[in-house]
């Protein structure tokens, strides 16, 4: 066949290209245009969208030879030189870019829309972007950005940015500065792991167990090794150090030796010249398995006769029994006038970050690499290094982990994915090795949100005061511990809800099973318990005849309350204010005839439902929690802040840069953040538990302030003026009506042999372990949300129209990006409620394709009214506490409470099933205990 002739971004290209290429591969591999991202290769996610002759197509399933003679536009072709396309500039201005991995796809799909619709409505936008997903933003800002860009293209002024109101903005803090690297993200120039290419790089793949539980009898790799182009085939015998990893318990084999414990367990590795050869080699590895009985769920796991999955674990399949004891439970229920006891079920759910896991290993001695180096978009770079070192039997100093941009994480990129594997392969082959997981591999492999069974009994007095909560939780920990211990501890300690509950007895059993491991997922267990707690609250409120808002106000935690873990709340408890905000906003919603909780229009039932939540900031529970940051000033007047704190889109990069700019009294534009390089950046600790703003924000703040003082001292000496007379303004040091550039002082310091650099190791206030009483956590964030749902009484379909939200985050460091976190959290939680379940049948996943896991699309995006409460935390940076998780906790119960208010049917199992809901409505049943995955 003739050569391929196409026009790409205005340039005519003639190339000899393999006929088996897709357009996405052609752009990325042959032309090096890596702005086009690949998220699924199933035509599901839409982030690979490019324009062919002006029409958007999914380039991942578009054979490049189909494009013969056609004109292709990718994200790189949108800007004119330095001038951004209005979509690009408006995505930045309206805060529509978080991790940025979806951004090229969203922008390209929108670009085509604007060609057809110069003035698109919300409906036009939702129609056009229906199959282009974003997991971070919740779409509200995306819609706003597109409309604003459309206006600019019509010669009108852009739409105003919906910047939330904040208290007492400082110079840089509490201002919506643009996030770091955002221009590169909208231009398609930002580099994620798969975008890195090294000369001589090999492609790697992992052979995974097809069995949920089996003995490995033999592994034969000869045929695979003999395949031309294969450079290495490794099994457990090739792991030089400890063949186990794990963040809390080291129970997860790097490569399985005798037993596999879930479908997806890694058995062997291949590195080959191309991805195709690597895949072909996988098929040549022969493994003899002897299937073993499967432990399919946590209840079976707890039975005395269940096969024991980890014989070395002291409590057998019981990964952990977590207990909360508070007051006198019998007395509590004896005092109650009303008691409700219900059982709730939540399914396993998937993060569906849009960037599948990828890691690159580069051997020691490869040009530019004096250490064994791993490039990876991970949430915990220093722990990665530690785990690689143990498996490789090397000292940590000989290993470098470089964090790349992360295309979303949400808790799903904390555990080891390919990090150790590429380190092994690079060392053995002495070549760079890239391990890119396919979406389908990512789905079956990485730890998920725990499926739970939660039985909860709540008692209250006639006057509305809660007297007791008793609960029993079962969590499906899956095959390996991952963060189960910590996650389910949070589910347990938060099982009273954010209320004053004088008596509590809560038991949680996290079990090992043969399912995919469960671990961290935004909300960290509290998402599950809130689903149960907040529905019990509404059931009680109804039984007591008290308005749900009032009922929560009566019981809301406030300063002076002691939590069920024995922690006296001394400050920063903004829950009541969040309830009042939502109450005010919700009551203002009426059609002229007063607020109604519920009403009908034709065959549609409408109702509001609400829920409250709280979530700790930081590790807590007695775990020493620290973060380190370093700030350095340069002769050009710029400042770099460094910390290995991962930014997966949530925005720690701009948070530390803002803290630095604030303390140094310099413009934000002069500060850049360097994150996640174990050689260049000190340890910021894990990006988990909503801890980074508080922890690394503080470390950066204190380091920057120390650096400013050092610079002031030097300047005073250099200029011979008293330090008190030096003021900072716009990057200048002013004194006595004169001024000097910051860079000049830095040069002077260097000439004197002084380092214009400061480092701070920030230690969080100490916490106490569960069961010891005292402060288990150093801060809590609070939120209240109300959802307006529409239920179609003919079809059972549920639609969420509006969400009123108020969130106490202490201080909004960057109000617009914070709002993005909240909107994104709400839509993610809406998915948790209405669309998402990762289905496993007797240990075998059914959800092996992204097309079988539906996350919310732009069509699901409700109108969101979000308010901020800034009840300062004394210890937090400028009063800030965590924000990452809190917004994604109460949307689910708020929607379920609304569905009950609309229909009289209560949802005990997620996600909501329109089929079961309609049948319940038709049969006059008041409860649903099945979800859509139960349709058999």
């Amino acid at each position, binding site marked *: 066949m003739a050569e391929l002739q196409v026009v790409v971004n205005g340039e005519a290209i003639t190339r000899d290209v393999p006929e088996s290429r897709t357009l996405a591969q052609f752009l990325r591999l042959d032309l090096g245009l890596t702005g086009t991202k690949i998220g699924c290769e199933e035509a599901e996610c839409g982030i690979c969208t490019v324009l062919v002759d002006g029409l958007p197509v999914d380039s991942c399933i578009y054979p490049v030879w189909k494009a013969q003679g056609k004109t292709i536009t990718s994200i790189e072709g949108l800007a004119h030189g330095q001038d951004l396309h209005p979509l690009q500039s408006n995505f930045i201005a309206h805060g529509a870019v978080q991790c940025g991995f979806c951004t090229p796809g969203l922008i390209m799909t929108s670009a085509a829309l604007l060609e057809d619709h110069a003035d698109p409505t919300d409906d036009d936008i939702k129609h056009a972007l229906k199959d282009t997903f974003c997991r971070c933003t919740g779409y509200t800002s995306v819609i706003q950005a597109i409309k604003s860009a459309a206006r600019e293209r019509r010669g009108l002024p852009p739409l105003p940015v919906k910047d939330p109101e904040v208290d007492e903005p400082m110079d840089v803090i509490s201002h919506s500065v643009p996030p770091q690297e955002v221009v590169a993200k909208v231009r398609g120039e930002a580099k994620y792991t798969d975008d890195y290419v090294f000369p001589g790089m090999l492609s790697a793949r992992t052979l995974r167990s097809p069995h949920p539980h089996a003995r490995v009898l033999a592994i034969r790799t000869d045929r695979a090794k003999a395949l031309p182009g294969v450079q290495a085939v490794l099994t457990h015998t090739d792991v030089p150090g400890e063949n186990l990893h794990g963040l809390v318990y080291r129970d997860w084999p790097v490569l399985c030796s005798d037993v596999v414990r879930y479908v997806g367990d890694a058995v062997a590795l291949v590195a080959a010249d191309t991805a195709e050869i690597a895949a072909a080699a996988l098929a040549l590895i022969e493994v003899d398995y002897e299937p073993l009985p499967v432990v399919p769920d946590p209840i079976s796991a707890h039975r005395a006769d269940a096969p024991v999955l980890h014989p070395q674990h002291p409590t057998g399949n019981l990964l952990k029994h977590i207990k909360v004891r508070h007051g006198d439970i019998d007395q509590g229920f004896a005092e109650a006038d009303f008691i409700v006891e219900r059982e709730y079920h939540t399914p396993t759910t998937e993060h569906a970050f849009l960037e599948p896991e990828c890691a690159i290993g580069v051997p020691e001695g490869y040009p530019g690499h004096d250490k064994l180096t791993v490039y990876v978009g991970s949430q915990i770079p220093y722990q990665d290094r530690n785990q690689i070192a143990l498996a490789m039997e090397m000292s940590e100093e000989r290993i470098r982990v470089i964090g790349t941009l992360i295309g979303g994480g949400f808790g799903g990129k904390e555990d080891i994915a390919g990090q150790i594997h590429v380190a092994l392969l690079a060392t053995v082959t002495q070549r760079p090795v890239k391990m890119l997981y396919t979406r389908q591999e990512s789905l079956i492999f990485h730890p998920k949100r725990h499926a739970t069974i939660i039985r909860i009994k709540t008692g209250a007095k006639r006057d509305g005061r809660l007297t007791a909560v008793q609960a029993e939780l079962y969590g499906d920990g899956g095959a390996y511990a991952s963060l189960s211990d910590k996650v389910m501890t949070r589910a347990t300690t938060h099982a009273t809800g954010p209320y004053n509950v004088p008596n509590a007895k809560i038991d949680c059993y996290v079990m090992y099973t043969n399912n995919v491991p469960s671990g961290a997922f935004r909300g960290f267990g509290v998402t599950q318990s809130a689903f149960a707690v907040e529905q019990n609250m509404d059931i009680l409120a109804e039984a007591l005849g008290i308005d749900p808002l009032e009922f929560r106000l009566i019981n809301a935690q406030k300063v002076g309350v002691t939590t069920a873990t024995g922690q006296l709340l001394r400050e920063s408890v903004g829950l009541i204010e969040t309830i009042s905000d939502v109450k005010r906003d919700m009551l203002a919603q009426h059609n002229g005839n007063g607020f109604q909780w519920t009403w009908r229009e034709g065959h549609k039932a409408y109702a509001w439902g609400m829920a409250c939540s709280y979530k700790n900031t930081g590790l807590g529970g007695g775990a020493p929690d620290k973060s380190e940051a370093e700030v350095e000033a340069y002769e050009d007047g710029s400042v770099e802040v460094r910390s290995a704190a991962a930014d997966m889109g949530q925005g720690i990069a701009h948070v530390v840069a803002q803290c630095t700019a604030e303390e140094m009294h310099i413009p934000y534009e002069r500060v850049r953040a360097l994150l996640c390089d174990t050689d260049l950046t000190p340890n910021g600790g894990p990006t988990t538990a909503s801890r980074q703003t508080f922890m690394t924000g503080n470390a950066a703040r204190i380091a920057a302030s120390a650096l400013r003082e050092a610079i002031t001292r030097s300047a005073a000496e250099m200029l011979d003026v008293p330090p008190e007379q030096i003021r900072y303004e716009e990057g200048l040091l002013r004194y006595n009506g004169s001024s000097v550039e910051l860079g000049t002082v830095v040069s002077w310091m260097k000439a004197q042999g002084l380092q214009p650099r400061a480092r701070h190791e920030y230690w969080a206030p100490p916490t106490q372990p569960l069961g010891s009483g005292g402060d288990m956590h150093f801060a809590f964030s609070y939120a209240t949300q109300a959802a307006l749902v529409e239920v179609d009484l003919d*079809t059972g379909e549920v639609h969420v129209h509006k969400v009123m939200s108020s969130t106490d985050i202490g201080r909004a460091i960057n109000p617009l990006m914070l709002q993005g976190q909240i909107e994104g959290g709400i839509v993610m939680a809406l998915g948790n409620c209405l669309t998402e379940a990762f289905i496993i049948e007797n240990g075998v996943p059914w959800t092996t394709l992204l097309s079988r896991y539906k996350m919310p699309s732009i069509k699901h995006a409700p109108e969101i009214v979000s308010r901020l409460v800034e009840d300062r935390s004394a210890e937090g940076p400028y009063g800030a506490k965590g924000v990452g998780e809190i917004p994604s906790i109460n949307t689910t119960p708020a929607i379920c409470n609304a569905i009950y208010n609309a229909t009289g049917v209560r949802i005990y199992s997620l996600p909501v099933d329109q089929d079961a809901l309609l049948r319940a409505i038709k049969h006059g049943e008041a409860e649903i205990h099945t979800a859509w995955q139960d349709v058999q």
Partner: protein
Amino acid sequence: MSTLWNHYHTPKTIDEALKLLTDYGGQARIIAGGTDLLVDMRAGQHPAHEALIDITAIPEMSAIYRQEDRIYIGAGVTHTQIVRSAELQAHARCLVESCGVVGGPQVRNVATLGGNVAHALPAGDGTVSLVALAAEAEVIQAGERRWLPIGDLYLGPGKSLVDSTRDLLIQFRLRATGAREATAFSRIMRPQGVALPILGCAVWVRLDDTLTHYDSARVCIAPTGPTPERATEIEQALAGKPATAETIQQVILIAMEALHPRTSKYRATAEYRKEMIGVLLERTLSAAVTRAKGG
């Protein structure tokens, strides 16, 4: 990501395409938009092929045109072309409605009507409308070119009369709706799981001269069996009846008796589907009657 196909051909004529199929002797497969084929191949639900033969560059298969009272639609016509066709908007509205809800723009810009039919799922959205429109399909099998009623192409779920390693689906034709005639399509989806409709329904109605009664009707509700079929019980029940809400309620009862949708795992219970038959008939018949009256 191992190679799913080694060669890719874009013939410009039907003869060229047929010759390629013959030359590869069953080792090549027709591809149109690839939105079913490539996705299935990637998921391992369809074998790899030595070559793919792309029919979308064949002008004869990529056009929509009218000849007398018939509209012809090439098998390689995309969903976007259908949605944008003024001819189809005016005279085969249900097809426009059904093709308009398939995927997002990225899928509709490449996915073809021929692919939807050759993929042979009973509830393919375009399929359901073609059946209600009593469309015919032109195929080439073993060198023989012939027109068949659309229903004859469906042998079972995912099983087509057209063997896409040897045969070619060339085009469809259907009668344009005229005075007193109209069509409508609607479907029920669920937000979870695979993007297959729980139930889809297309109707074609012709009213009598007074515009008060049904003269005749055609109805397709799917999936209610392994292949998409006309609901003749409903069609007979409608003929001659007043075009009123009461009639719709009556035929819903008949439909509930006559049709037996199944429970399918992770998709819908039989009971739910039965309920949806009523909802869809109500929606589509009332829309079609309004349109036939000129509304």
